[in-house]
């Protein structure tokens, strides 16, 4: 249980997917302009990450031990089609949920955080429960980073930021500062 807690805290804060592993940077830099959208995207991504962890575990346990060379291709294909399937079912079952979260789903599949999670989880030999915890932590961490970033960016919109600096360069620097602030979490719960 301690291990699970550590996996969660570690992926949420210490080894945040975005700020320490550079995964999911495209939406982090691209879609973080608005708070609402960022939060929803974060939730949707968390959902896909959990699905991914599940798929990765199934593939890893039942398929890849026989054909390890298919790892990459099978991850991509299976995750993409599962998410597609879920997207279609959400659209049918709950149009309102689809409206708030579902529209992000196809976008998320191409997010490297998804593939990254599958690969990290298998590299580390996580079991199902560990994998799901890992996915939850990663998703929560992604959402946290997204929301903080969006808050900061919304604030800088009305500030006096020089025109030359605005844009991706500025977002990267903000990300760097956030990443620097998150360094404070290093070693959290690992020393006691």
């Amino acid at each position, binding site marked *: 249980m301690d291990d699970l807690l550590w996996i969660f805290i570690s992926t949420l804060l210490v*080894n945040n997917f975005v700020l320490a592993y550079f995964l999911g940077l495209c939406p982090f830099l691209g879609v973080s302009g608005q708070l609402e959208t960022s939060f929803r995207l974060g939730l949707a991504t968390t959902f896909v990450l959990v699905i991914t962890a599940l798929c990765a575990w199934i593939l890893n346990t039942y398929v890849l031990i026989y054909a*390890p060379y298919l790892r990459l*291709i099978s991850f991509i294909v299976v995750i993409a089609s599962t998410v597609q399937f879920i997207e279609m079912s959400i659209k049918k079952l709950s149009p309102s949920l689809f409206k708030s979260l579902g529209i992000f789903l196809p976008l998320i599949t191409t997010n490297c955080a998804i593939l990254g999670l599958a690969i990290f989880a298998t590299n580390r030999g996580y079991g199902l429960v560990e994998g799901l915890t890992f996915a939850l932590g990663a998703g929560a961490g992604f959402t946290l980073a997204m929301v903080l970033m969006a808050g900061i960016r919304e604030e800088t919109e009305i500030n006096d930021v020089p025109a030359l600096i605005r844009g991706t360069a500025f977002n990267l620097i903000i990300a760097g500062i956030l990443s620097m602030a998150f360094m404070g979490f290093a*070693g959290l719960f*690992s020393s006691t």
Partner: protein
Amino acid sequence: MTDKHDKTKASSIVTQEPSSTRLIVSMAVAGFISGIIIIAIYMLTFETIKENKARELREAVFKVLPDVSFMQKLHFIDNKLIVVKAEGMDDEMIFAGYDPQRKFIGYAIQGKGPGFQDTIHVLFGYLSSKQNVVGMEILDSRETPGLGDKIFKDMDFVGEFSNLPISKDIKAVKKGKKTQENEIDAITGATISSKAVVRIINKAFNKWSPRLPQQGSEPVLEKQDNQ
């Protein structure tokens, strides 16, 4: 009118809805070709990769267990250690090292746990005859460069594990304050990482020591293909 005309003309030429059979066939062909390529490269590199991995592992084991020339992998299943030859590693495996005369020397035990940044993987040699740790190697870590990475770069620190009694849990204390045999000097400025290594070793040791067979009844070195 002309617009419509153009459109019909264009559609008759360009957009022939491909039949689903065609879609499936093209996907299948692509999948087939890609499968062939992947399997080919896998076959081509399989041996080298296997050798690389084996060598890496062997080197690590030899490093933590001095004077060892042979090793074999032991798997703890059904309350006993069984020699395994298959690929792969998991947490329930350790290594036994043997001298050139194929006499048992000691175990190389792996452990992992949270470090300053991320999980640290440790391999350490253990002489059951003396109850001593005789070597330590960090297999994998993401500790801070210049600070935490001293756990494998600082040879003084690594050296402390070359002859360390582990009958009681090892303790990391501030540099220069070592009084007990089972204490080691922590790295200045990287206390957390030092303590993490010690904790991982203690944990792995406490997990494995009851599992190890009585002295004298260690598993015998079995014939191996590539040794």
